[in-house]
């Protein structure tokens, strides 16, 4: 499973895309995986997950082929 990262999350991971090799089937599981691999993500004001370009809740399921992204606090405008 591939995960896109943006802004400070990209800097923390050191890459715009990472590969997740552990099987995760829910947003909550992915979040725990990411926090374990990149503890500094926990320091952010917020850290949302988007699935197929829509904000996802922790209980949402992940399917193979989903476009998954880590959304640190936005600051456009």
């Amino acid at each position, binding site marked *: 499973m591939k995960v896109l990262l*943006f*802004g400070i999350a990209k800097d923390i991971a050191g890459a715009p895309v990472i590969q997740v090799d552990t099987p995760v089937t829910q947003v909550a599981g992915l979040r725990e995986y990411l926090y374990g691999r990149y503890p500094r993500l926990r320091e952010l004001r917020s850290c949302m997950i*988007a699935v197929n370009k829509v904000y996802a809740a922790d209980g949402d399921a992940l399917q193979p082929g989903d476009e998954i992204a880590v959304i640190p*606090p*936005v*600051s456009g405008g």
Partner: protein
Amino acid sequence: MDLLVQIKDSITVQEAVDFVQSPSCGGVAVFIGTVRNETRGKSVQKLYFECYTPMALSEMEKIARHIQQEMGIQRIAILHVSGEKLPGETVVVIAAAAPHRGAAFTACQYAIDTLKETVPIWKKEYFEDGEVWVAAHP
């Protein structure tokens, strides 16, 4: 098509106004955001905007559709830049046209307030002594 959402290197007020103006709408409200030359007392050299473009466009379109369906707005344009910007340059333009000007102002303010909360765009500020992703930490 009566809504326009775009992310690109450079945007102008005029293109947003030209899109929303029509002979049947008497009033247009516009918001223009520009790069400030200082923030919290520190001089800003430049900004860098990173966008998750397909999702950002989708969130901008949600804002535009909500405004059209719920706020009495006929035509709306939401434009945002990506990439490097210097102080004074325009980074966001929102224009809303409505028969009633109160609705146009309300819609324009709703759009910029919501954009700043939901649209996946990130701003990095460059100072003389370093750089920081805006609002990332508590």
